[in-house]
C-alpha cells in the first residue's frame, strides 16, 4: 500500500517525555482525520509502549527511544524502539496481568491494552539488544 507520509523521532527515555510522545504521534495521525476515540486509542497504545521502554527496557538508566510513524491511506503504523534490556519471553510478557516489576505498582496490562486499542501488534525483541513494538491502527476516515 502506498505510503502517504512518515516521521521518525528520537528522545531520551525520561518519564516526562511520555506525554510528549503521545502528543507527537497524535498530531501526526491527525493528518488522517481520525475520530477523537481513534486518537485516544493511539495515544494510549503509544503511552504503554513508551512507558515499557522507560521502565523495563532501560530500567534505571537513560537511553534513546525511537518512534517511527507511517501514514497509509487506511491507517497508521507506529514503531516504538529501544536499545535496552530486551525481553526474554515475549509470550509471557504479553500475558495479561503478568509483570516483571510488581514492586513498582505495574499492572502488567501494557501489551494487553496495546492489543485491544490497536488493530495489530508485533513485538520483536532480543536480550541485551533491545525491543521494537510495531502496531497498526486502521483509521475509518470520514472522506472515502
Amino acid at each position: 500500500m502506498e505510503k502517504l507520509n512518515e516521521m521518525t523521532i528520537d528522545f531520551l527515555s525520561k518519564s516526562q517525555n511520555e506525554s510528549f510522545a503521545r502528543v507527537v504521534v497524535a498530531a501526526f495521525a491527525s493528518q488522517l482525520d481520525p475520530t477523537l476515540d481513534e486518537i485516544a486509542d493511539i495515544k494510549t497504545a503509544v503511552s504503554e509502549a513508551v512507558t515499557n521502554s522507560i521502565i523495563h527496557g532501560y530500567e534505571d538508566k537513560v537511553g534513546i527511544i525511537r518512534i517511527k510513524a507511517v501514514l497509509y491511506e487506511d491507517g497508521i503504523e507506529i514503531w516504538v524502539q529501544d536499545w535496552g534490556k530486551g525481553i526474554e519471553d515475549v509470550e509471557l510478557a504479553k500475558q495479561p496481568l503478568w509483570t516483571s516489576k510488581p514492586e513498582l505498582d505495574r499492572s502488567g496490562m501494557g501489551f494487553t491494552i496495546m492489543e485491544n486499542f490497536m488493530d495489530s501488534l508485533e513485538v520483536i525483541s532480543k536480550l541485551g539488544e533491545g525491543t521494537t513494538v510495531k502496531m497498526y491502527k486502521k483509521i475509518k476516515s470520514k472522506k472515502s
Partner: protein
Amino acid sequence: MHFNRCTLLYFKGIIGRILQKIVEIVFKALILPTFVFEGGSVMLQEGANFRFIKDVMIVNLKGELDHHIADRIKEDIDYAMSKKNIKKILFNFKNVTFMDSSGIGMLLGGYKSIKSIGGALGVCNVNERIKKVFDISGLFSIIPCYTDENEAVEKL
C-alpha cells in the same frame, strides 16, 4: 521537611499558625492545589488535590494520569498516610483527561496498601474513555466505582 515537586510549609508557634492560615487562604483564593494537615502545614501538589470529607481522603486527580504522574501521586499518598491515619481513599476522576495502565497500577498498589491496614479504596466520576482502560484490566471487580463523591463517601 518534605520537598519534592510538592512543598511542605510548616510554621511554628502562634505567629506561625497565623501565617499558615494566611497562606491557606491565599492559596485557596488562587485555586492552587493544596493539602491541609491538621498539624498545621500546607502541601502543594501538581496533578492532584487532596481533601477530607468525613473520614475519607479524596484525591482529586487532574489532567493526564500516566507513569510520570502516577509515580508522583503515589509518593504524595504514601506521605499523607505516614502523617495521618487514613483508612479510606477515594480517587475522583472528574478532571482526568487521559489514563493508561500506570493509573491502573497506581490504584492496585493503593488498594493493596490500604487493604493491608483494613481500609477501603474507591473511584468516582470515571468517564467513558477512561472506563475502557478500567474494563480491560478488570479492576472494577475489586475496586468499587461510584457515580460521584457523595455516593462514595456514604458507601466506602
